[in-house]
């Protein structure tokens, strides 16, 4: 124990001088925690209790655990079977445990075969563990507890935390392609706002929420909490997919559950791990824009081609002067991307953890700090930095205290601080703004000229009346700071009731979470200038455009002051018993309540009073769940689980629901008749489950209580009176009461098998089907009855089918000096709507949603572009507004001679990919290791939004791909990429159609990493235990048919792009 102080007197040697100050701060903080825990752990009160509890016949058994090559194995779980006593081996592979004669010690370690040893007379038991392709007794997280992997017959996928280590401070971006059954994609790359979306086994509801329930250390938390987790702190990460795994979560588990536990302290001297990473990120792909001259020429063409009488935006004089470049002030060209964005951004991440403890108390403390910078170009003329900067600090501590031999207390605290600073409208918006800015009207800003010599402000460029968008000014004019902090405190009490019955355990969890956030915006109104040519002097001088509205001083706006607080209490009674050699039973009963209250977000402050009131009320949940398992001869397994769950959202009669499920499993390979092929098929398990799970997240975020009508008594209104002074507010109905509304129910079925071959290959495949019923959907009623709000009922049904699987192949080579592993996983989830209230579509069956995927898009079939007006005149009428030659020609599906909404057909694939897959190869030789990982997605479509890309409309930029290939009167290419130009939206072309549809499939090289472990003699000279250096790259390559931007962004390609990251890191433990 005394060693600890030594380590903290040293400064970490690998920290650069520049950053040292910050680490000092982090270190001292960690030290404070440590000291605090020290005092706690050495408290004599606990010592006394310990002595009191120990019984005479128990003695201390010691030993060393080594692998086949004689190397000590660290972190082996040593458990006295039938008790909760146990520990993990220390760095020398040593363990020490109290046991009595006849007790069975179980030694287990991931990737090794578990070994059981019965305690005899010897006090020293050394154990050698053999490596295995898979450890069958590996413990896996299941709802409200753990189970041995061998006994698991529900569908649970586990990910090794190491696989989640990518060069990002956002854990959600690491999930795609890693987990069978998880469909995930990332639609933007702005630091702090780059959460990936994910669905377990796809989407089976067309209701409001289709994202999974997220549980961290057993408590329901949000996607943001998941994002903040550091892979280094994760002990286990699993995903629960079928009814048997999720039924316990009752009315909340239908969309699947993501379950994460964080690391706990391990008995032993203090162990310090430090990881430091620096990364460089650049956009995966940038959008190419046309040059300014082309922009002007085509801008003129856009007007002329539609309206020969129209006013041309760019005079010949302007175009020629711009080409000549004689007066770049008066005839500017601005590459806004170049002006606003840097080529790359640098981010830093540090993670520091301490781990250790004695018999009475063990601790795990980690401190992590990330700084992510955005790629906005920091303007030198501005005195505040409005580039995106996202800083996170995370302090996590968990302490396990053994109160008595049978009682344990676990305290954990998790504190998160986040600080986002960036431009007023956010980093993504800066990208969007660039697209909406004319490249030839003005410069971002002008140097001070003689007339404005004494101005104190930046002379931002603008045009006309001064109300054009200048994204540079928007970026520079101010900055926002978002500060958020989240504090999670959890107390867990465990008691072993072996005095009543062997294997009976009680657990009580209390969790309190406080979340607070606030945003401050500081900005000024830019002064805009435009160059004017004086006809008298022939000089260009800058003229102010908005002397009245511009300001030099900052104004301040505070928004999104959000505080939320939630409480979770769980009591959990479990029983586990091996009745005899053959029969094993377990039972679990859990009672949970959940309560959350929060202030309203700014967005809600504009809502009606009625809505605000309803949203201000507590969110509550309450339930009892249970699971009963039976295993016979380790070959036949049965499991029954249930959730009985209530939600505050529904009327009293509809509030509570019962969600049962049943699962059966058979370990075929343990049967006698399998012995002969034992070497080939090492494992074969067949399992199946069926059950019900609910989803109470229906309607919308604003729908709290369906059984109440929502009436706003202060909405709209009318004025009367001579002086228009008598205003009376009006009444609006926002929801009609319906006390029949209840949650949706998913009927989930799962059949799977697990197969092990040649001790090298592991294959797991699950086939699933889910029938989701009672999906809340809108009734179809004629407008002529005058309802103000939609009428909804639990009338929708949907089904999804699919398969997910994973295969692992591992092998050694070069006499055990080298190893390699190939992993692949695959998810295919296809859904369709089976019931929904629809109009009578008998005449136009293609409009029916029944039988079509939930995220299917309907649109018009674009045949090609019209050749000319004559063709327009001789074709079916298109009813979306003016159109002519060069506009999109649609197919008249119903043949009624006109193109109307009746001609819309399902086009393309659903917007959520049906197939997600990933494959990775990792290999090591001596001290070197290499890994790469591919992620892919298929069967999805997306649309290039013609509203966002239509050049010249609202000064929008011209994408080079359009400039290179568009319909013009001189080049009537009816298959050109962009239809006839226009300076206004052409509604005819903007309809959802197949012209702008794109295939969303892609395969990307997500991650490559090369690591080098420093040789041991060198490491030990440095008094270290391990030093590993590594270099990694993320999002290196992408293969796709779509070339305009990163296809993973789908239709969102004009905002902050996903990032390609090169990362250098070092991982040290001592």
């Amino acid at each position: 124990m005394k060693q600890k102080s030594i380590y903290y007197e040293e400064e970490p040697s690998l920290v650069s001088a520049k950053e040292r100050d910050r680490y000092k701060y982090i270190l001292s903080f960690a030290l404070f925690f440590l000291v605090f825990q020290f005092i706690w752990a050495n408290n004599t009160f606990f010592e006394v209790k310990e002595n009191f509890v120990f019984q005479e016949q128990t003695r201390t058994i010691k030993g060393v655990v080594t692998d086949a090559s004689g190397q000590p194995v660290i972190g082996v779980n040593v458990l006295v079977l039938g008790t909760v006593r146990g520990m993990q081996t220390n760095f020398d592979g040593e363990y020490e445990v109290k046991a009595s004669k006849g007790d069975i010690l179980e030694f287990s370690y991931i990737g090794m075969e578990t070994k059981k040893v019965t305690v005899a007379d010897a006090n020293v038991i050394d154990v050698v563990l053999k490596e295995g392709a898979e450890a069958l007794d590996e413990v896996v997280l299941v709802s409200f507890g753990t189970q041995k992997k061998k006994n698991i017959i529900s569908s649970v996928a586990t990910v090794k935390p190491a696989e989640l280590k990518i060069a990002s401070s956002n854990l959600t971006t690491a999930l795609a392609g890693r987990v069978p059954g998880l469909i995930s994609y990332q639609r933007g790359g702005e630091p702090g706002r780059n959460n990936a979306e994910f669905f377990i086994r796809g989407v089976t509801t067309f209701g409001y929420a289709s994202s999974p329930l997220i549980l961290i250390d057993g408590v329901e938390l949000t996607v943001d909490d998941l994002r903040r987790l550091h892979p280094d702190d994760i002990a286990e990460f699993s995903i629960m997919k079928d009814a048997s795994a999720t039924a316990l979560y009752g009315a909340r588990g239908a969309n699947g559950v993501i379950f994460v536990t964080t690391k706990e302290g391990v008995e032993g001297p203090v162990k310090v791990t430090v990881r430091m990473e620096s990364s460089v990120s650049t956009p995966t792909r940038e959008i190419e824009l046309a040059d300014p001259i082309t922009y002007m020429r085509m801008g003129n063409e856009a007007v002329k081609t539609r309206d020969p009488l129209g006013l041309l935006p760019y005079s010949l004089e302007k175009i020629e002067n711009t080409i000549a470049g004689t007066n770049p002030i008066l005839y500017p060209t601005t590459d806004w991307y170049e002006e606003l964005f840097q080529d790359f951004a640098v981010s830093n991440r540090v993670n520091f953890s301490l781990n250790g403890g004695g018999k009475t108390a063990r601790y795990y403390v980690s401190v992590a700090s990330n700084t992510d910078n955005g790629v906005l170009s920091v303007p030198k003329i501005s005195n505040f930095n409005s580039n995106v900067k996202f800083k996170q600090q995370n302090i996590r501590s968990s302490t396990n205290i053994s109160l008595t031999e049978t009682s344990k207390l676990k305290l954990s605290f998790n504190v998160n601080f986040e600080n986002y600073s960036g431009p007023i409208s956010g980093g993504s918006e800066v990208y969007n703004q660039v697209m909406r800015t004319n490249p030839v009207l003005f410069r971002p800003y002008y140097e001070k000229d003689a007339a404005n010599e004494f101005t104190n402000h930046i002379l931002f460029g603008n045009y006309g009346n001064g109300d054009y968008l200048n994204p540079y000014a928007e970026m520079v004019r101010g900055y926002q700071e978002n500060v958020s902090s989240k504090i999670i405190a959890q107390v867990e009490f465990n008691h072993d009731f072996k005095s009543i019955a062997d294997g009976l355990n009680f657990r009580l969890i209390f969790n309190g979470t406080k979340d607070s956030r606030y945003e401050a915006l500081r900005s000024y109104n830019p002064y805009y200038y435009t160059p004017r040519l004086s006809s008298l002097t022939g000089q260009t001088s800058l003229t102010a455009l908005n002397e009245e509205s511009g300001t030099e001083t900052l104004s301040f706006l505070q928004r999104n002051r959000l505080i939320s607080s939630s409480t979770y209490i769980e009591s959990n009674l479990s029983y586990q018993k091996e009745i005899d050699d053959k029969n094993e039973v377990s039972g679990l009963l859990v009672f949970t309540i959940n309560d959350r209250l929060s202030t309203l977000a700014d967005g809600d402050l504009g809502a009606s009073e009625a809505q605000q009131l309803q949203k201000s009320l507590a969110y509550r949940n309450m339930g009892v769940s249970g699971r009963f398992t039976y295993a016979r001869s380790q070959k036949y397994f049965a499991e029954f689980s249930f959730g009985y769950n209530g939600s505050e959202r529904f009327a009293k009669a509809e509030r509570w629901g019962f969600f049962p499920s049943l699962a059966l499993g058979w370990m075929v390979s343990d049967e006698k008749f399998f012995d002969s092929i034992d070497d080939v098929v090492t494992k074969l398990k067949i399992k199946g489950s069926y059950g019900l799970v609910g989803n109470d997240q229906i309607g919308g975020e604003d729908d709290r209580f369906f059984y109440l009508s929502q009436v706003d008594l202060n909405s709209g209104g009318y004025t009367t009176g001579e002086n228009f002074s008598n205003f009376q507010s009006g009444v609006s109905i926002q929801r009609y009461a319906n006390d029949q509304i209840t949650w949706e129910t998913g009927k989930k079925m799962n059949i799977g098998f697990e197969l092990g071959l040649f001790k090298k290959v592991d294959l797991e495949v699950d086939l699933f089907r889910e029938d989701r019923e009672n999906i809340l959907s809108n009734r179809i009623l004629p407008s002529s009855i005058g309802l103000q709000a939609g009428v909804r009922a639990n009338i929708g049904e949907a089904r999804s089918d699919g398969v997910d699987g994973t295969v692992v192949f591992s092998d050694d080579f070069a006499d055990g000096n080298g190893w390699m592993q190939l992993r692949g996983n695959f998810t295919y989830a296809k859904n369709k709507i089976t019931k929904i209230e629809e109009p009578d579509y008998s005449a136009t069956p293609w409009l029916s949603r029944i039988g079509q995927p939930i995220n299917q898009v309907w649109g018009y079939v674009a045949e090609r572009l019209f050749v000319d007006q004559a063709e327009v005149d001789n074709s079916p009428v298109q009813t979306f507004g003016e159109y002519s030659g060069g506009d999109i020609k649609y197919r008249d599906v119903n043949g009624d001679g006109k193109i109307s909404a009746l001609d819309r057909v399902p086009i393309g694939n659903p917007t959520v990919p049906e197939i997600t897959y990933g494959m990775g190869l990792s290999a090591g030789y001596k001290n070197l290791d290499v890994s790469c990982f591919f992620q892919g997605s298929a069967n999805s479509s997306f649309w290039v939004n013609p509203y966002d890309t239509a050049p010249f409309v609202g000064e929008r930029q011209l994408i080079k791909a359009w400039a290179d290939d568009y319909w013009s009167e001189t080049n009537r290419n009816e298959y050109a990429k962009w239809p006839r130009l226009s300076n206004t939206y052409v509604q005819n072309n903007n309809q959802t159609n197949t012209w702008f549809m794109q295939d969303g499939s892609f395969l990307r090289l997500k991650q490559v990493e090369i690591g080098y472990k420093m040789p041991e003699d060198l490491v030990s000279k440095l008094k270290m235990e391990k030093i590993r250096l590594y270099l990694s790259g993320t999002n290196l390559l992408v293969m796709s048919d779509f070339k305009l931007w990163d296809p993973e962004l789908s239709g969102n390609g004009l905002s902050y792009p996903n990032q390609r990251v090169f990362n250098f890191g070092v991982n040290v433990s001592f």
Partner: protein
Amino acid sequence: MKNNKIYIAIIFVASMLSSCEKDYLNVVPDNVATIDNAFSNRFNTQKFLYTIYSAIPEPGSVNNPALNGGDEIWYPDSERNRTGVRIAQGFQSATSPSYNLWGNDGLYEGIRNCNIFLSRIDNVQGIQAYEKTTWKAEVNFLKAYFHFYMLRMYGPIVINDELVPVSAATGDINSDRNTIEETFTYIVGLLDNAIVDLPITLQNPGEELGRVTKPIAAAMKARVLMTYASPLFNGNSVYDGFVNAEGTPFFPATYAPEKWDNAAVAAKEAIDFCHEAGMRLFQKEDYINRSGNAITSDITLLKAGLRSRMTEKWNTELIWGHTGSTNNIEYESMPRLYNYTTNPVASRHCPPLRIAEMYYSKNGVPIEEDVTYDYANRHKLRSSLVADKYHVEEGQRTAILNFDRETRFYADLAFDRGVWYGNGANDESDPWYVHARGGEFASVFEISQYSVTGYWPKKLVAIPTQVNTGTSLSTTRYAFPILRLADLYLYYAEALNESKAAPDAQVYEYIDLVRERAGLSSVVDSWSGFSNNPSKPTTKVGMRKIIQQERMIEMSFEGARFWDLRRWKLAKEFMNKPIKGWNVLENDADDYYTIRTLYNPTYSEKDYLWPIPETETINDPSLIQNPGW
């Protein structure tokens, strides 16, 4: 023993949890607002009444197609996608209908609120019986008005008289369109009931102006019956094949001349109620001069009086005005009068050339008929003389078209070199002048803010409305007229002319009142004195033309022309002619005053009726779409 303590603690906590209140999930407190609260007392019930008022389509809204969906007001190209402008260009569609009042947020919601109100009002405590009666009459009136508004747009509509329960099965809901006759009969029935119970004037005008009275309901009945009698709905053979599911034609098959008699009776009845309530045409003597500068010239006073007939709030001839803000419409209609550094006015409501040509000559007859008017050279230029100084800036050149016109021309329109009395310049000898040629103040400020025709609807801008210090517009609010007395007089004249074999003194009486107020002689005198067609007022057809032109002039920019052209079945004729204006980008006067075609609109037979939104016909395939859509 320690263990026991722990057990006790566990049992204690566990029992706490299990004894958790049963109502843990009952988080909703009492008194959360529901529909019952809207009828809990007099005050809340009145709020509901105001809710119904708030559904009245705003006549002065820049999205009201009656203002800019026809040929009366045009816009710069950048405003092409405005609701009304899309209709004007001929881009109405069933897929995405412009000004869709059938679908969500449409008038049926207002109608349902009427039904809710009528089903609840009797049970509200604390409202006096007479008040309940009046309120019910108001709601019945509004219910009729909403139905009429839709009828005028869509033709046959679904009458929604009863409150359909939310839980009704789809099959139990009637969504079939009623015939024209059923709908008109239904509307007139509601109005008749309302007229009986409504007060002749408001008890407390200070608080209540804008609420419905007997003259309003009677005048609306006149409008309804005028519409019913007009060619679009009366004997229109175009819709012969337009039948409902039973095969009954939606439109009456034969022309019924007695419908004009009914309209005349209703108009006269309404006029009598209005007179009884003290209404009369707003005369120049009624002009309220708030500026402190006296007006000495008769011309300026007449112009000011005529401008005030629209923009003087609650003036003597206003029957029913809407109380919505007029800020936007004034902002859009006012030219820039001097060098503003910002854009306090948008200045983009632009009456096309044909509207300028529509106004009479100073002799009160159409310019093309006036024998004294140099019609052939009207697009040429001349300089303003001293005699013209109250209309056109002295010594400046402008088109001959802008000279020697009736006073309403100068009261209603602004043009290059024309006089703008108001905007703070209240000395008639030193008013603002509009300078609109290329590069001048009132010219293109930016591409979305200028008059593309060279005219502005001055009529829509109140005289005291002004731009303060060149930066911000301070508008004087008025009640945008839905019904006014001149309108009713002209209805009466029109109905009488149609119902009689030939025009007589009775027909001339009310149109002449309107002309007299505008400073013009009677129809007979003017035509006989100045028209190249002096006998025009003596024939029914000739008189019809005269009344129509008088209506279009008198009611300009108020949203009347749009509906009148439709009900007269003249829209197709008018709306297929090119929209023209002066060549406003030119600097030089001669170049400026050349005619430029702005747009060639198209209007076909189907455009007489709005399309029913396609979403509705898809949702309910039994709903019959209007012909041609």
